[in-house]
């Protein structure tokens, strides 16, 4: 009979250990380099740490079997399913859905994705308004609306404290971003003429007017799958010179105008300066 499996090391156990340690080192690597923010909400990090420890412990127990000569006749393909995604993930850096939709539209190659982006744009603005349960609530039937409103009130109370206006200037930072988006979209006209200071990334594509762009932050509800841009439409004469996806600090004046049939706040630019990407690129509403 044929001589086989002349290995000193049990290949199957080796593959198992490689997969386990591979995943734990990948998790460790993304947490350490803070790349984890591209993948999941920070609340998942403790769970991932638990996974890292469990993977290591399990592989320690498996390591005893590494020198057992006989394997248990499982198919090697099983472990390829684990190892291939690992290799790919180590090689390919993470990328968010939104930044591609913008970058692919850069040269306005195809109309489909452009349209998608407009939809996105409108959708994101709508969803912001919606997430506030503002006047749109009357569409939803009464009972649910009342639930939502009471719940919203309590959230609002907490957020109100974040809304600071100094010398007629609204300063929007990470903590107050969502609260201000809510406030500005909700109270149409209230802040007309106020000055505003905001940091965000620049979003635009071929469908925007020459002097328009959006200053936006990416919102992560749960993980990379549900990333959404949220922000304000800006007017700036040299908007076309701005680099998409770059980060900027913007100063301007708030005006209310009708865009696509809807009244919304826009920022008339007075000053723009490039800034570095902030440490926490994303905002977490929940």
């Amino acid at each position, binding site marked *: *009979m044929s*001589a086989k499996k002349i290995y000193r090391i049990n290949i199957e156990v080796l593959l198992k250990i490689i997969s386990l340690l591979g995943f734990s080192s990948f998790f460790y690597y993304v947490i350490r380099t803070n790349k984890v923010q591209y993948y999941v909400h920070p609340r998942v990090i403790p769970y991932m740490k638990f996974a890292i420890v469990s993977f290591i412990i399990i592989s320690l127990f498996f390591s005893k079997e590494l020198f057992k000569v006989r394997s248990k006749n*499982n198919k090697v393909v099983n472990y390829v399913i684990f190892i291939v*995604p690992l*290799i790919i*993930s180590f090689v390919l850096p993470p990328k968010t859905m939104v930044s591609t939709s913008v970058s692919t539209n850069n040269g306005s190659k195809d109309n489909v994705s452009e349209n998608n982006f407009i939809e996105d744009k409108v959708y994101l603005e709508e969803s912001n308004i919606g997430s506030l349960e503002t006047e749109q609530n009357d569409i939803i039937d009464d009972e649910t609306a009342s639930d939502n409103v009471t719940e919203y009130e309590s959230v609002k109370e907490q957020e109100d404290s974040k809304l600071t206006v100094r010398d007629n200037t609204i300063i929007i930072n990470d903590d107050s971003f969502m609260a201000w988006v809510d406030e500005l979209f909700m109270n149409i006209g209230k802040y007309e003429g106020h000055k505003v200071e905001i940091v965000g990334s620049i979003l635009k594509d071929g469908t925007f007017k020459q002097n328009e762009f959006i200053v936006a932050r990416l919102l992560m509800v749960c993980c990379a*799958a549900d990333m*959404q841009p949220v922000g304000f439409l800006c007017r700036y004469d040299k908007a076309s010179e701005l680099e998409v996806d770059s980060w900027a600090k913007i100063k301007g004046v708030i005006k209310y105008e009708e865009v696509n049939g809807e009244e919304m706040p826009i920022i008339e630019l007075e000053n723009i300066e490039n800034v570095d990407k902030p440490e926490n690129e994303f905002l977490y509403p929940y």
Partner: protein
Amino acid sequence: MKIQIDIFTGFLSSGKTSLINKMLKHSAYSKEKIVLIQCEFGEEKITNDIVNNKNIYIEKVPKDKNINKEYIKKVIEEYSPDRVIIEQNGMSNLEELLDILSHRDIRKHCIIDNIINIIDCRQFRMLMGIIGSNIVSQILYSDVIVLNYGNKVSTDEIKSLKKEIRNINKSGKIITMERPEDFLLYLEYDYKKPSNKNITDKLSLVVLILITFYLFDNIFRVIDLSEYISKFQVLNTVFMSILMEAFPFLLLGVFISSIIQLFITKEVIVKYFPQNNILSFFIAIIGGLFFPVCDCAIVPVTSSLVKKGVPLHIAVAFMLSAPIVNPIVIVSTYYAFGPVVAFTRVGLGIMIAVITGIIFLIFPEEKEVLVGGISNYSCNCAYCNGYSAKEGKLLKISSVFKHAGEEFFNVGKYLIIGAFITATVQVFIPKSIFTQITESEIISVLIMMLLAFLFSVCSSSDAFIARSFSNQFPMSSIMGFMVLGAMADIKNLLMLSEGFSKRFIIKLLFIVWNITFSILCLYQTII
């Protein structure tokens, strides 16, 4: 050249000795100096011409003695053979023998060539019931499984035996034979086979991996130009993010499941599990409160409960309700929507779980729902078989981890496939497609249910996702998303297929989907 070791296992009178007789007469072994170690003596004897052969020595191990390291060493030193054939006693543990053989001192001189398990087709099911775990480990480690006396049972029986064995041993050769002479055909075939086939197999795998790596590297270099690659990059990010969320919970699930496997015996379940249906449904639902795990963790726990003899309808009710009544999910729903919605979600979830359970109670499954039939009632992995006999605490703990690891790979494989499908759906089908078709409430309920099924969001965080839809969809469809998503989605169904039969999974999906839809329609009219 190292000493080759062949091991023959199988129950008494399954035909081990006959096979060895045939094998020793085969020309392939005529030049080798062979020692045959017999641990079992049945009716069949080694034939005289073999006994008289100068190149073959027969060592008999008395019944009350076991083979140990020293014994093997002694045999090797005494004869310095080319090959040692061990005919193992069918009742003794193959794993122990393998442990002895993998000892460093022996490994230096020997290598295991083939492990052959011989099964008498007529006895298999009966023996499986009595010494199942022993047989499972024999099958598990064998390279060749011989189904002897294949002509004495029906072809259907052979088919189902093969299926069961394949379930335990994924890659070994299974041959059916009617007479011992048939084994010669196999030997003939095997002998002609180029001996390094296995090495080239593995080499080609390495080459394949290298090529893939090279290709990806190349693709990576042109990434700036390619829109598709950046799509793929997004896909991979989403895919990984799902794994990051799911793996911790899956680990928790497999830990709990292996503790159940190893520490709770079937007898305990039978003895303490209430016979009263109402009470046991109640326990199934309350049970979820104490399992703070999401839907991906519940699958391995459920299948180990069924293996331990918990009635199927109760296990189903538990599996469906646990991801919804668990504390993490309740808190996150409360946080996203407030108390009324959280309470409604739990209420609807329990209703659907109980109704589905009752349907399974009234129309019980006639066919076996677990893949692998009887053999599955004891765990297939070697960790809980061989070692459970030895009652060492440390060994038990080590088996918990090893078993958990084994199960992680078994179920995780499906999780990865499911996550990949879900990620593809999420990346290539924009959510706006779904949000645009909201004509009537009924349709929007269906859409949200479909969305929940396709997107397979972990139940611990789906409330937040549902929240982002709340302004585009009425509450009843949001409820559909949150209730169905936790109970049945792509990821879960794939994971279920690791342990349960396809028939059962399809039936379950059908029932859950229908009941959820009907209950939501009812809910819609009430609010």
